[in-house]
């Protein structure tokens, strides 16, 4: 018995963990970071931590545009760029930022023997040359109009520190140039950051930031409304009312970069091959009703693959298709299906906000115009595996696309390019659409650096998409956060949580 008493006393002695109070901002996400190397992961929760420790070369603004941050880049011609590095920036350990460090960053990303998860964004770069203490010349193998937007993924890591300590140590004890310094990481429990008082862009207002992984959604809400944490991610629409009623916290939303839609296998011989049928399906689905009843109002109906944040978006061509079942029936009759038809539809469960329920609502609405969709729900990893291998067992599938490059190319080329251009690239893995003119426009937009020309090309491409209706266009998703009222902070479309932009008001 005495031994047990001793054991209890021993555990009593252990320290108390983080609590949202005073100068500390506590952020709760569903999972822990997997690494703190800012360019070797592909998860938002990890990016949320690293983006507070590191700076990117170009910074994404809340409206989706970008601006120079750790330096500036100028196009010299179609294939060469001049990079100028900001002077007077220091890493947390005192190392100075200069052209050599930037070159080291490129070398690390472009090393073919040890690809990092972000390497894929910089593939077109052929050579990087240091031409002055703060100047570099970049040569690309083909025109690279996405270079500037991709530089928002260029999180700058220290050269000397990594060379001295090794990449593995760095990934657990990061040193960056950003507004917060790394303090400690207790795996799956908490990551502590402290303000970098010498930050080149100004002193951070919040002195301490703690990230806590809390996987269960209802536990996150419970922590929020009792003041245990300040910001929680992925608040369920059903929980909004109880959070707002708590008096302590409130729900804050932002339209996200992610569109949700139903992709159709238009290649087959069946009814989905006929554009009239596809248009009919778009008129048959009541987007507004789905947003209101399934998403608690947290979405915006959209009638094209893009949304307002994207370069290339066009307001007229992206107007949602109105809900018009009579018109849908008429179109179906014209196409030779007056009594409708049957097809199979897939949906993931738990990947997007109420994804399965959205798919069920779509099926229900299609039934009203006589189209019978047989729904098959799957776990995400096998679902996405089938999509990436082009082995989808259904005729249609619900999916979302978050375009974090904020440029039409990432959506239109990746999801719809059909490989109809002679000598051009083959059809992309996601694309089932086949429109030679569309392919032409999208490919041209990849090879000009002049942005106004690109804008025109995307407008023409969107016209083709609107006419071909290769998907059932649904809505732009909204991200919902729960935030303690003492915190002044607005959520961003790219899902990043920057403590530097936040403030605690008492």
């Amino acid at each position, binding site marked *: 018995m005495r031994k047990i008493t001793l054991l209890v006393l021993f555990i009593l002695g*252990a320290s108390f963990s983080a609590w949202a109070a005073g100068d500390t901002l506590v952020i709760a996400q569903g999972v822990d970071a997997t*690494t703190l190397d800012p360019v070797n992961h*592909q998860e938002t929760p990890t990016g949320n931590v690293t983006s507070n420790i590191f700076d990117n070369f170009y910074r994404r603004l809340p409206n989706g545009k970008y601006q120079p941050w750790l330096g500036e880049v100028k196009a010299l011609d179609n294939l060469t760029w001049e990079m100028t590095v900001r002077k007077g920036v220091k890493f947390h350990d005192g190392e100075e930022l200069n052209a050599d460090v930037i070159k080291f960053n490129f070398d690390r990303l472009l090393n*073919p023997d040890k690809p990092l998860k972000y390497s894929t964004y910089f593939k077109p770069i052929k050579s990087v040359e240091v031409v002055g203490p703060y100047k570099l010349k970049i040569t690309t193998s083909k025109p690279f109009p996405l270079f500037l937007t991709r530089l928002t993924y260029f999180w700058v890591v220290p050269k000397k520190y990594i060379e001295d300590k090794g990449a593995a140590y760095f990934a657990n004890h990061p040193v960056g140039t950003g507004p917060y310094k790394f303090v400690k990481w207790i795996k799956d429990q908490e990551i502590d950051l402290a303000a970098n008082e010498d930050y080149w862009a100004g002193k951070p207002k919040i002195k301490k930031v703690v990230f806590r992984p809390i*996987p269960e959604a209802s536990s996150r809400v419970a922590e929020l409304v009792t003041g245990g944490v300040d910001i929680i991610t992925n608040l369920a629409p059903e929980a909004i009312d109880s959070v707002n009623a708590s008096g302590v916290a409130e729900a804050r939303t932002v339209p996200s970069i992610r569109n949700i839609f139903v992709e159709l296998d238009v290649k087959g011989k069946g009814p989905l091959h006929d554009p009239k049928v596809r248009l009919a399906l778009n008129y048959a689905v009541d987007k507004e009703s789905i947003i209101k009843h399934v998403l608690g109002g947290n979405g915006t109906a959209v009638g094209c693959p893009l949304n307002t944040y994207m370069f290339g978006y066009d307001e007229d061509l992206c107007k949602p298709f109105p809900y018009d079942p009579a018109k849908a029936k008429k179109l179906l009759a014209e196409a030779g299906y007056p009594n409708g038809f049957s097809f199979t539809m897939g949906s993931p469960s738990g990947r997007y906000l109420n994804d399965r329920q959205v798919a069920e609502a779509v099926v229900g609405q299609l039934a009203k115009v006589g189209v019978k969709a047989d729904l098959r729900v799957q776990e995400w990893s096998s679902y996405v595996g089938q999509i990436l291998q082009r082995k989808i067992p259904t005729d249609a599938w619900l999916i979302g696309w978050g375009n974090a490059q904020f440029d039409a190319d990432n959506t239109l080329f990746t999801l719809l390019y059909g490989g109809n251009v002679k000598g051009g690239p083959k059809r992309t893995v996601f694309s089932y659409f086949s429109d030679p003119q569309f392919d032409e426009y999208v490919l041209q937009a990849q090879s000009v650096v002049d942005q106004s020309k690109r804008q025109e090309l995307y407008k023409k491409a969107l016209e083709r998409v609107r006419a071909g209706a290769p998907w059932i266009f649904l809505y732009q998703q909204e991200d919902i956060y729960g935030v303690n009222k003492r915190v002044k902070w607005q959520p961003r479309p790219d899902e990043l949580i920057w403590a530097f932009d936040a403030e605690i008001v008492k």
Partner: protein
Amino acid sequence: MLTYIIRRLLLVIIVVWGAATLAFGLLYLSGDPVNLLLPLDAGQEARAELRHAYGFDQPIYVQYGRYLLKLIHGDFGTSLRSEEPALGLVLVRMGPTLLLAGWGLLFAVLLGVPAGVVAAVRKGSLVELLTMTLALLGQSVPVFWLGLMLILVFGLRLHWLPISGAGSWKHLILPTITVGTFVTASIARLTRSGVIQELRSDHVRTARAKGLAGRVVVYKHALRNAAIPVVTIIGLQLGALLSGAVITETIFAWPGIGRFVLIAVSQRDFPVVQATVVVFALLLAFVNLIVDLAYLWLDPRVRYS
């Protein structure tokens, strides 16, 4: 005796090999992990490169051979996500899980055994009815629901205890109750029926006839004999405790292995899942061995040869 232990240890090797093979096979069937490792918009070329870098483009027998060869050296490879040695990631998280399971078991024994004894001794009384009703409830309540109710009452309403996380003794209380309740109930019920049976037996009657005190009769003569099935159940329940930890750890954001491996499975982080399966197989095999050895101490008639 020694040969018995050696034979059992050899059996452990076979069990671990079987578990490791099963883990490899099931994961291999579950699909290509590279799909989930790169952003969706990464090109096929980048995917192929990564597949090659991890050796997933090799035939299955080559992959399996490599895996076993490394396993013999205690090398599980590196996590596909964090690129750190998988075994290290698993072992770091075993600590909190074992701590929770240990406290859950302690809670269950300290509460379940006395409750069972009291119910047996006071057979037919209101006390028995009450304890056994509670035990039945404890066995039927879903772990998930219990955890959320505890959070609701002690975290949200009363503000007595922290809702989630780890780091102090207060953080242990709700998860311990959540994980331990089912086991407590099983132990209480088993202890009760065991003790009732023993109280009716000849040696207890003899002990009473000798004039021994009631307390000595119950605890020394009845309980010790009733303990064999209880010890068996404790050994078996450790497996249940560890798997129950998956749910408990998720609800309370406890930094243990259960919740970690759940994420690793959904992300197809092969090395981490494989390392966890092997570590668990080893752990359970040893616990079973210890339980079997405990019989020797409890019942001198048991002999292994």
